[in-house]
């Protein structure tokens, strides 16, 4: 029953799925892990990205992932504006914890309702040449529906990692997550830096949303299924670490896939989150946390 090809295919499927999870969680690593902004609406923005991809794919036949990439400047601008409102209303007054959380809950519901009003409540799918096809490497099957999102996700994660580690603004973002006051003493405006960071976080949701609708159908409230998962990945990864997020997402994907294949899919979420709890018990800062 537990043959080598079944086991290997489960691992590969888990890695591919983990790639998508990384794309979904990486923006939250920036927003929540590095900026301490509990953006509970992050999955809702991912779903909005899915619907934008669906709309342009359905109307004009544009590839959904291309739509996601093209929309990143728009989502960046929305993120900058959203953070400005959040900072002015809550963070500046020290009320970011509960009231800020309530703010993002409200944003989540507004995004969902806007999607319902615009697109209705039906499930939406996209058409591409690569959905439904797969490539075989020996006995390993790689569906393009998962392979393409995996590749795009890695590319996006790599680009963000390089931006944060090699550019001035990126290093300023890392600095603001460590010591806001010290950054101010260096002559940088932490608020401005956080605006850019939050904009970047939201820009990732455009791409993650496109990947989501390539993988499977979406409806306006499907983001709620991912709230627990993306926050768990960020925490498991160590909160501030991009590479930690990627590793955590891959681990979660592989655990879900292995358990689902070998023991029964019902156990997959419990085992995955059990793994999170065990890791935090052994290493409370997460895999790559300091």
């Amino acid at each position: 029953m537990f043959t080598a090809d079944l086991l290997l295919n489960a691992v590969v499927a888990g890695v591919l799925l983990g790639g998508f999870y990384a794309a979904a969680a990486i923006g939250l690593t920036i927003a929540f892990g590095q900026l301490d902004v509990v953006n509970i609406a992050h999955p809702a923005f991912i779903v909005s990205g899915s619907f934008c991809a669906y709309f342009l794919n359905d109307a004009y036949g544009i590839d959904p992932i291309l739509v996601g990439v093209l929309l990143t400047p728009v989502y960046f601008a929305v993120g900058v504006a959203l953070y400005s409102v959040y900072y002015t209303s809550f963070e500046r007054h020290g009320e970011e914890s509960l009231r800020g959380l309530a703010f993002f809950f409200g944003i989540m519901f507004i995004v969902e309702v806007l999607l319902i009003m615009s697109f209705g409540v039906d499930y939406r799918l996209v058409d591409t040449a690569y959905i439904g096809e797969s490539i075989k490497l020996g006995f390993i099957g790689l569906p393009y529906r998962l392979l393409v999102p995996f590749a795009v996700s890695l590319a996006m994660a790599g680009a963000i990692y390089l931006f944060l580690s090699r550019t001035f603004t990126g290093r300023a973002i890392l600095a603001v997550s460590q010591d806001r006051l010290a950054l101010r003493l260096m002559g940088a405006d932490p608020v401005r830096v956080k605006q850019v960071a939050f904009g970047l976080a939201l820009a990732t949701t455009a791409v993650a949303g496109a990947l989501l609708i390539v993988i499977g159908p979406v409806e306006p409230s499907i983001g709620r299924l991912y709230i627990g998962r993306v926050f768990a990945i960020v925490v498991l990864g160590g909160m501030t670490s991009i590479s930690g997020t990627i590793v955590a997402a891959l681990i979660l994907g592989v655990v879900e896939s292995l358990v689902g294949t070998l023991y029964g899919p019902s156990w997959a979420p419990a085992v995955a989150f059990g793994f999170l709890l065990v890791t935090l018990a052994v290493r409370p800062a997460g895999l790559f946390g300091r």
Partner: protein
Amino acid sequence: MLQSIARRRLFGALGGTILAAMSLALPSAQAAEPVKIGFGMALTGALAGNGKAALIAMEIWREDVNKAGGLMGRPVEFVYYDDQTNPSVVPGIYTKLLTVDKVDLVVSGYGTNVIAPAIPIMMGRKKVFMGLFGLAANEKFNYPNYFQIMPAGPDPKLDWSRGFFEIATGLDPKPKTVALVGADAEFARNALDGAKTNAEKFNLNVVYNNTYPPSTTDYTPVVRAIQATNPDVVFIASYPPDSAGMVRAINEVGLKAQLLGGGMVGLQYAALLTKLGPMLNGITNYDFWVPAPTLDFPGVNEFLAKYQAKAQDAGVDPLGHYLPPYAYAYLQVLGQAVNAANSLDDAKLAEYIRSNEFDTIIGKVKFGKNGEWASTRVLQVQYQGVTSDGLDQFLKPGARAVLYPSEWKYGELKTPFPQ
């Protein structure tokens, strides 16, 4: 003096006439008081696509009934709330409908998951409760005033998949093994329970029997695990997103079987039919109505024309073959019972519904044990010759061949899967 007497008599006669006219007017004003029908419906959440489509069908019924004079001469009004496809809010909704909104009649929302939590409320108040597509929701309650419009049959858990397994055992070579898989949800679990019993009854060895959480993103691991058991038959009980996920994963992994499908919700909707297209070919799945000459019931095409005109703007399933005719029909049953009994008394209505057969746009409806249909009419259809050419192919006979029951058959089985 004689003139003043005559004037008083005239005024007295006029006053009496006015009073008589007022007393006649008062009962008419009371007769115009609307009949309020209350329900929860999935307007958001996982099943909202169907819920909104059902609501459109119900509004069409309300318009038709009010044009024909209403129920007992009274107009019909709806009082409804969004149940968000969330079972936990259902008891609160129906308690409010009955105690605060004081509706006259109640019907259910869409789906087993939201029907089951409402039944205890109805039992406490002895209300007649029309159910909209609940699979064996009343099996544990045995509530006599519950009536269910989905044509599952007197033993819904078994009747749901009976046709699929009867087709399977008629295959040559005779299949020996079956894989059972479904979502971890009330409907799917009920369907799988029935499928397991049917599998044993038809001497099929169950080689895989698992459920998956509805939050599953990718079904490739599930399909590979099934493939590893090499089943002859695969029965799937899934909801729309999982149905799409399973069909895609099956196509990518290359799962083969003599017969595959069974209980996949969602493959009846335009969105999935058009986007999945040729991947559907060879899948044998349940359905309740398709455009076939054997299912051309009086009124159904007229209803569908009205529904399809409204559905496009509402962003819901433009085909409307699956749930909307039944959403119209369950109100037809209730309305016919009210008019025939000339009463809103739940005991009288329940007795009438239990004892009579109804003519509806989905054909003749007769209820049996536990409020389920007296005989099953769960169709098994096979997708054949489906192309990527859009919706029109599903508006006419052919793309969905009706294989079971035999009295509604239109088309022949093509095996194995995939085609």
